């Protein structure tokens, strides 16, 4: 018996790593898992943790690896983790950009040059300027991100700028054009942009509001299932394997200890599932 449709696991292509746990150097007011310096719901992953999971991922023929948190570069093993990953396949890091110091960027560039696989850095912006960005992310954050972006530009790493719809109009044609101009103004001649909707869970519930009871999936077609990222990805945290990168505050979203055991259907009973379905969201680039 189930009133919620189940998403099948079609093909495990993407493995996510909650590499910094829920620990972050800032506390964004829209964070769907309320990351902060003090949130230890999920702890950081060690290099050994990641290496063990990479071995699992290799056996299962995974295509790509994503790293998030919290702030991944708070993890002191981060460069070593990326080095290990890039020997096996492509990697993407989602960062707030504040810890992209010159030395880190130089090391990232070394990793880029040493691997046959792509390393992508995604830097979050939540506004067109310091005032709007810092209103979400905290005072002084914009200025530090600007330094981080400059350091990336110096080593010729072209990040994907990721914005949420907390930035008013970010998803519209005009909003995108405005962001592209902004990214060009940072010195990136090939501006790359990803726009994400907001998930009304975690801190975002206080900033705006949560989901209405009707915001739930009741049916799921085969085509819808193939578009949902939970049909092709899993998330590794210090607590085990979760269905996706979003639902980490829900015990029911923890599927298993091993990745292989998690390759089974999952009931889409959460409001956030509705957002993924309605907006066709993928956390992938």
């Amino acid at each position, binding site marked *: 018996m189930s009133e919620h449709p189940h998403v099948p696991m079609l*093909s495990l292509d993407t493995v996510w790593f909650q590499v910094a746990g829920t620990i972050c150097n800032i506390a964004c007011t829209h964070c769907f898992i309320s990351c902060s310096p003090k949130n230890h719901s999920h702890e950081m992953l060690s290099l050994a943790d990641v290496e063990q999971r990479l071995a699992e991922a290799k056996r299962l023929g*995974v295509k790509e690896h994503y790293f998030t948190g919290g702030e991944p570069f708070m993890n002191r093993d981060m460069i070593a983790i990326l080095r290990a990953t890039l020997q*096996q396949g492509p990697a993407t890091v989602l960062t707030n950009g504040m810890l992209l110091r010159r030395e880190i960027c130089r090391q990232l560039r070394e990793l880029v040059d040493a691997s046959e*696989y792509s390393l992508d850095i995604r830097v979050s912006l939540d506004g067109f300027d310091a005032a709007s960005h810092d209103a979400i992310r905290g005072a002084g954050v914009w200025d530090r991100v600007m330094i981080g972006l400059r350091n990336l530009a110096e080593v010729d790493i072209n990040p994907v700028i990721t914005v949420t719809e907390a930035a008013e109009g970010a998803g519209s044609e005009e909003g995108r054009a405005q962001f592209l101009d902004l990214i060009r103004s940072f010195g990136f001649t*090939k501006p790359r942009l990803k726009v994400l909707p907001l998930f009304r869970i975690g801190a975002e519930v206080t900033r705006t509001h949560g989901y209405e009871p009707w915001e739930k999936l009741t049916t799921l077609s085969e085509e819808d299932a193939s578009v949902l990222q939970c049909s092709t990805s899993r998330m590794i945290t210090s607590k085990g394997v979760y269905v996706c990168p979003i639902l980490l505050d829900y015990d029911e979203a923890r599927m298993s200890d091993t990745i292989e055991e998690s390759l089974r259907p999952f009931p889409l009973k959460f409001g956030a599932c509705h957002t993924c379905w309605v907006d066709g969201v993928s956390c992938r680039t």
Partner: protein
Amino acid sequence: MPNVALNVALIGGIYSNYHALVATLDDIANRNVDFTYFLGDLGAFGPHPDRVPELLRARNIPGIQGNYEESLASGRADCNCGYTDPRDNVYAQISYDYTFEQTSDDHKRWMGTLPKSIRFDINGKRVLLSHGSPRRINEFLWRSTSPDPFLHRLCDEHDADIIICTHSGLHWHKAIGHGRHVVNAGVIGRPANDGRTNVWYTILSIDDEVRVEFIPIAYDHDALAREMRAEKLPEEFVATIESGWWTTCLESLPAKERMASRY
């Protein structure tokens, strides 16, 4: 006794570039090629989309559907190219609308009869021709995002030793061990985003070993550019033909391929 080599010519996306197709077929005729196949995406980008199917049908060259043929034959409103960025989709739609309008119903019907994949065995190697990937017609298989464990899984799941694909537009070959190979045959529709005007096709040779050769093809790209302008196709497309650098549909490129790209 050693196996006798068989040579298979593989023509990736043609994108209505019939000048390049003629030059490619001439080149194939001058080599010791046993079989020739096309891998889909006959239309898009270039002018006069009926000329490519006319030529392929007249010469009885076998091949498979790409997302373009699937879309044209089924009357879809878009090319289902698999782009996610609106900047890519704007240009993809211009190409598709032009191609849909200019492709005859007879060719569209023929496109609908093409298989989605072709399999054959050569000297004990199981070869599988696909458009995007064996599992999805519009999957982009880029070299920098196609790790060996994943490619092994594709070979396992699709009972193949050698997987051939196109769709992404950049050619590459990976020997992944256990006698397995994955080859993106490239495209002859537009240059390989390297500042050179030539395009590429592929010859797969199999005897006791597997060899993959990428063949550069120079063709009358000035004539193509003139015709594209006459057809009022976007100047951005013409610039790619004339310069060898992609100017559109760039956002699907992974970091490494984008780094090597001018735009």
